[in-house]
């Protein structure tokens, strides 16, 4: 069915995306730095003559973004499309498979860009013969707004934020954060720092660029805050929030009601959510076709907002994954150091092998 791939290419090109073909053999370190050790076991690895670790590209997003950074300023607008093989160790599927997708970089009208991406993904899957996919959507920006509005202290805030996307673990974490709130004695930062410094010096670790005595002392103080928990009320509100699900219109009402009831100011995030819903409707997407879950997200720290997944049927393997990753380009450009600036980026990838369309 080479026609369907040709028409897919035409669809993506006509939508304004330029096809790129980054090298298949990539520096493995980039993937492990950005996506974590857990990805490494899924990489096909080899090494260069000089000992560098190389990998067959496991996806297009990171190589496409590397190409973007290598060819001009990070913040410029660009639209990339791709169709070709990617390589991952998978248990009961072939290690080499075809993906197609797009990356839309630099658009500051984020909600409109999110909607354009979902629309294009729906058009692409329809073209490939999937008429009524089940579409799950989520929004980690909304969760972040909840954490801000509840004024959760930084130690718990980062714990909760990084666990978002792993629903059972997040619930267990909130359970543990709940209620304790008995004030712990404030630790003596100065003494902690002196102790850490002395031990670092004794083991010769002081000079090699690992954790410093200051970092260790800061965290000794932070641990006291963690022991205190977040309090019962914020925990209960978070649990209520995470239980919200339904089509995005109904979900929006539920989120608004919860915010009103609990007197939380999450206005900006709610407005963005509403604007995105409107943009969906503007594209002729039936909101009833989408199912939002407040606890749905992707556990990669460069995903920052809207995320979605498509399945042929509920419970079947994912055929499309997409979302907003405003933190990735900044992390790559700054080599992860410091707070990277947000650079708008949103895209999707289609598992062509799982759709069953053949070349």
């Amino acid at each position, binding site marked *: 069915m080479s026609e369907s791939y040709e028409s897919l290419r035409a669809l993506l090109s006509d939508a304004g995306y330029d096809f790129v073909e980054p090298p298949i053999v990539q520096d493995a370190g980039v993937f*492990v*730095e950005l996506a*974590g*050790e*857990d990805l*490494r*076991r899924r990489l096909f690895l080899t090494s260069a003559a000089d000992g560098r670790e190389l990998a067959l590209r496991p996806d297009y997003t990171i190589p496409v973004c590397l190409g973007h950074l290598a060819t001009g300023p990070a913040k410029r607008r660009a639209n990339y499309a791709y169709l070709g093989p990617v390589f991952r160790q998978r248990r009961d599927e072939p290690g080499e498979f075809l993906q197609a997708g797009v990356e839309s970089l630099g658009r500051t009208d984020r909600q409109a860009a999110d909607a354009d991406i979902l629309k294009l993904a729906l058009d692409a899957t329809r073209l490939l013969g999937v008429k009524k996919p089940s579409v799950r959507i989520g929004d980690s920006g909304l969760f972040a707004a909840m954490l801000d509005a509840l004024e959760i202290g930084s*130690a718990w805030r*980062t*714990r909760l934020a*990084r*666990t978002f996307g*792993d629903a059972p*673990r997040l619930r267990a974490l909130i359970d543990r954060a709940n209620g304790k709130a008995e004030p712990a004695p404030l630790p003596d930062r100065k003494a*902690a720092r002196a*102790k*850490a410094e002395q*031990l*670092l010096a*004794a*083991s*010769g*670790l002081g000079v*090699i*660029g*690992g*954790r410093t*005595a200051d*970092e*260790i*002392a800061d*965290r*000794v103080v*932070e*641990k006291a805050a*963690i022991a205190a928990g977040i309090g019962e009320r914020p925990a209960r509100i978070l649990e209520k929030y995470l239980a919200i699900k339904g089509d995005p219109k109904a979900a929006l009402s539920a989120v608004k009601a919860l915010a009103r009831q609990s007197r939380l100011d999450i206005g900006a995030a709610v407005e963005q959510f509403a604007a995105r819903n409107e943009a969906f409707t503007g594209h002729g997407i039936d909101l009833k076709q989408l199912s939002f879950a407040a606890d749905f997200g992707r*556990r990669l*720290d460069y995903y920052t907002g809207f995320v979605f997944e498509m399945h042929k049927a509920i419970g079947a393997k994912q055929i499309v994954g997409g979302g907003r990753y405003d933190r990735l380009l900044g992390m790559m450009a*700054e*080599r*992860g*150091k*410091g*707070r990277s600036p947000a650079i708008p980026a949103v895209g999707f990838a289609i598992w062509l092998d799982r759709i069953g369309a053949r070349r």
Partner: protein
Amino acid sequence: MSALVIAVPSKGRLQENSQAVFARVGLGIVQSGSDRRYRGRIAGMAGVEIAYMSAPEIAREIAAGAVHLGITGRDQIEETIPDAAAKVDYVRALGFGQCDVVVAVPEAWIDVATMEDLDDVAAGFRPHHGRRLTVATKYINLTRRFFAGHGIADYRIVESLGATEGAPATGAADLIVDITTTGSTLRANGLKVLDDGVILKSEAHLVASRVAKWDARQSKALDVVSRHFKAAD
């Protein structure tokens, strides 16, 4: 019909201990003639062949079904074979080679006592240092599984081929996953084991391959070997 193949460690204390355990139950291992470094037999017992291999190799051969029985540590089995339960039967513990596979961090990390602390440190590490927290180990799969089980994602493994405990002091990695028996080597290197950082309690085991071909003669030979062990209990 061919022989029952038992893989036995080819060197060091593991070999001596294996030899001694077999001798104690009345199975004397004899290294055999031509290629005596790699093959042997059991005195007075036909249909059994001894193959000498390194400990990781034994685990691999058991998983591949290339040998029927083997002597190797639980750490090797669990590290080398992804679905160990489906492929390996732990026939019996042999009472030697005890060690723990542990997560150990610098003693100077006075704020880190548990895996949860380590998760916080791992997540906050990159913004400070521009790189991920690194773990030196030769137990790559055990480490990945254990860290994933604790929800830790923000780290990377640096494969270590020896003297892992020295990695933090040389700057090769921030912490380690390694085996320890008494903890004294770790302490000498300024490291401490996390409270919930024991990944695995290991010991040398006689293991059987569930995927090897077992014909009647080989099964019978296994019975004879097992009877010797039972009789000595």
